[in-house]
């Protein structure tokens, strides 16, 4: 028994991603058509050449028919996937395994979300009939994640003003990156002082500490590694895929201290083992991480092994994760600036890895250190501190030995 991974057995040979934002004039179907066709085109395929589909959407459609009806594709398997905010990554993981197993030659993972049609502020969960005691239903997403901030400050002796500066710098950095991304929802740099002065949302979090609520879609085409160069001269190879659903004990176990996501630690450890990564800070050249709220990104830097415990806040201030830093994080603007259409986000992260590894990112946000054979990481999370699901992938431009 063990998690063996499928290192270098599959490759991504085509990707597409819509702009993310408030697409009042576009439907779920319209965005699916754009992302899937763009992915197929970049692989030199027709959609009818794809053998099987995995559609990730948290709540913008049910069943595989959401995709097959839209694309008018019949007689093909289409699986609808939902796993909180890691839905898009989960769709990709299924597609990769399907190809690695030999069951299909060409698989597509596609994620989509239309959040702006609800008419509500923020995210709206699906109500499951309950006894009225389920605390999570009463808490908004920013409130859940804001629980990290005072706990982190308490544990590591960071005072609240210092921590506010750190969180603001994370938002500032992601806005700087998003300003260099034509697909991003927010394309303006925001001064630190303005970030800090924003209206409060929950705890230490202001409006600028929260990811964008948006619409969007992204898609990837997966084939066996040995077939990859038939579709493109610059495929990216899957080195690791790890997914962990936590035992959700954080809300009931006093040993959990709200300064870490144990699920992320576990999925990172598994992914690093699959890919043979022993020193993530040097072996990884860029990371797309789940910065749903600024304290999340702070804690992730430690959980992913980029910073020592209790040190991430100093690394953030030192610019380690800036575009020009030692390990750029969220070079595309992240959930913060690119936006967070739930089902699409995991594939949007992979889309940035795709652009960067192929040298196709625009010059003003291109990461040059990727050329040295280092890897790109995507990290996608769903749920809340204490009870979440976590996905980590590693991809690289070179095939395995």
């Amino acid at each position, binding site marked *: 028994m063990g998690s063996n991974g499928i290192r270098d057995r599959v490759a991504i040979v085509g990707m597409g991603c819509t702009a993310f934002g408030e697409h009042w004039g576009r439907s779920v179907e319209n965005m699916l058509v754009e992302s899937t066709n763009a992915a197929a085109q970049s692989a030199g395929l027709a959609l009818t050449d794809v053998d099987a589909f995995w559609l990730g959407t948290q709540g913008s459609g049910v069943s595989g028919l959401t995709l097959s009806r839209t694309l008018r594709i019949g007689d093909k398997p289409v699986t609808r996937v939902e796993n909180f905010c890691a839905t898009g990554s989960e769709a990709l993981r299924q597609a990769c395994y399907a190809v690695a197993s030999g069951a299909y030659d060409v698989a597509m993972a596609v994620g989509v979300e239309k959040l702006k049609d609800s008419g509500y*502020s923020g995210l709206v969960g699906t109500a499951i009939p309950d006894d009225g005691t389920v605390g999570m239903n009463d808490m*908004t997403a920013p409130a859940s994640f804001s629980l990290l901030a005072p706990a982190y400050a308490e544990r590591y002796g960071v005072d609240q003003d210092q921590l506010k500066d750190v969180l603001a710098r994370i938002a500032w950095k992601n806005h700087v990156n998003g300003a260099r991304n034509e697909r991003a929802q927010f394309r303006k740099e925001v001064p630190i002082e303005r970030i800090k002065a924003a209206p409060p949302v*929950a*705890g230490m979090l202001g409006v600028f500490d929260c990811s964008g609520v948006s619409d969007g879609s992204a898609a990837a085409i997966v084939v066996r590694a040995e077939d990859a160069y038939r579709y493109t001269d610059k495929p990216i190879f899957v080195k690791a895929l790890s997914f962990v659903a936590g035992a959700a004990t954080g809300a009931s176990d006093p040993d959990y201290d709200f300064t870490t996501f144990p699920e992320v630690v576990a999925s990172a450890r598994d992914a690093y083992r699959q890919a043979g990564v022993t020193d993530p800070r040097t072996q990884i050249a860029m990371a797309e991480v789940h910065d749903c709220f600024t304290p999340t990104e702070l804690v992730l830097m430690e959980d992913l092994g980029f910073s020592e415990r209790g040190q991430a806040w100093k690394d953030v201030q030192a610019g380690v994760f800036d575009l020009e830093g030692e390990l750029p994080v969220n070079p595309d603007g992240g959930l913060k600036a690119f936006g967070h259409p739930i089902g699409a986000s995991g594939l949007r992260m992979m889309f940035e890895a795709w652009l960067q590894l192929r040298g196709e990112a625009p010059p003003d946000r291109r990461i040059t250190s990727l050329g040295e054979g280092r890897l790109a990481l995507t990290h996608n999370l769903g749920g809340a501190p204490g009870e979440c699901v976590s996905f980590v992938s590693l991809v690289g431009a070179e095939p395995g030995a």
Partner: protein
Amino acid sequence: MGGLIAYGAYVPHHRLRRSEIAAVLGGAAAPGTRTVAGHDEDSTSLGVEAARTALRGLSDGRAPRRLYFASSAPAYRDKTNATAVHAALRLDRSAPAADMCGAVRSGFDAVGAAIDSPVPALAVLSDLRGGLPGGADERDGGDAAAALVFSGSGEDASTAPVIAEVMGQGWATAEFLDRWRPQDAVASRTWEERFGEQAYAPLAESAFAQALKEADLTPEGVDHLIVAGAHGRAVRTAAARTGVPREAWADDLSRSIGNPGAAQFAVVLCDVLDRAGAGETVAVLLLGDGASALVLRTTEALAERRPAPSVGEQVAGGDDSLTYATYLTWRGLLDREPPRRPDPEPPSAPPMHRSTDWKYALVAGRCASCGTRHLPPADVCRACRHTGRMEPEPMADVPATITTYTVDHLAYSLNPPVVTAVVDFEGGGRMRCELADTDPGSVRIGNRVEMSFRRTQTARGVHNYFWKARPARRVPGQG
């Protein structure tokens, strides 16, 4: 006749300064404050809190075997409200739970029924009183609850020591129009004040005389006189006519609490008992659609069985920063713009029925194999993975400490912002819950909290009751 074996009161945290009303609506500013139930409280939740205070000193074997619930502001019609109180207190299934709701005087009748019960009986008197903006009922009303436990009599009587014996009772029933409220009206109507004053006077005299006679007592022998009722002028007149010396008149708490309707006389009685010595007589006279009287005599046992917190401590611990606009909002008298969020969903009946002990009484689970506490009870232990039914683990009276917290400006509440905390219980166990009666700026990691029964929301006419934490009031280990 048996006697009182336990008592407790609950005074909500919030106070409205009467001058706040005048500041908004104009007119003369009245002195003092009135209590206001939180946006997350109703007569059921206030009653549960009072009953918890009363029962805390009684061992399980001495639990009440009947429950009477009285209020002029019941949370539900058709559905019995006493059953939620029964569930929150984990009374035995065989113990009846009855509502005596509607009339303001119902509290006295619930106490009368508890006194007459052959088995130990609990009377919970709980009320929220108000009226139309700017009126006397709004200004002079109050929100509070009290719980009195009587011993029963004969072979089924409780073995708990009696703290006040019932010495005498008296009644004078009469049908006349003094105060009434049509179905669905938010405010009472009253007849001309002087008519009621005249109508009540002879009835009060008659009931009081009957109770004193039965107690073999003269007015001069009354150590504490409590005269209660919604008709303020008639109450003052009746008190003067009792012949009880003025120095024996109990403070009616109208300057701090106001008049909490069905609970009024019992809250004042609790306050008197908090201070009374052994062997002292307490006479209660209630005016309401007639008059009723009750005479008690305290015993030596009272001193050891006083509950915490006392009425005085609760009065002193209140927060009088409530604005009149917030008061009106909580009472549904000011229709505010809702947030751009979906309407809350009501809880579902079958899941509630499956988890009554957890939901209403905060009974967690203890792993049958390793003893780890679980809130809520779970099928599989998080520590040892033992699978199977957990042992019940009551948590309502276990103190806890804040581990982390947030102030949520996005979540919908009638009292924004919502303060949510992760709290860890003494002896193990964790829960994420809302903090009630809390100033958002005062919350710190490490603050001590205690659990409080609340109405967390109402959706589509369904009240959702569950527990929140509030800043600790009792000294740990006390009571």
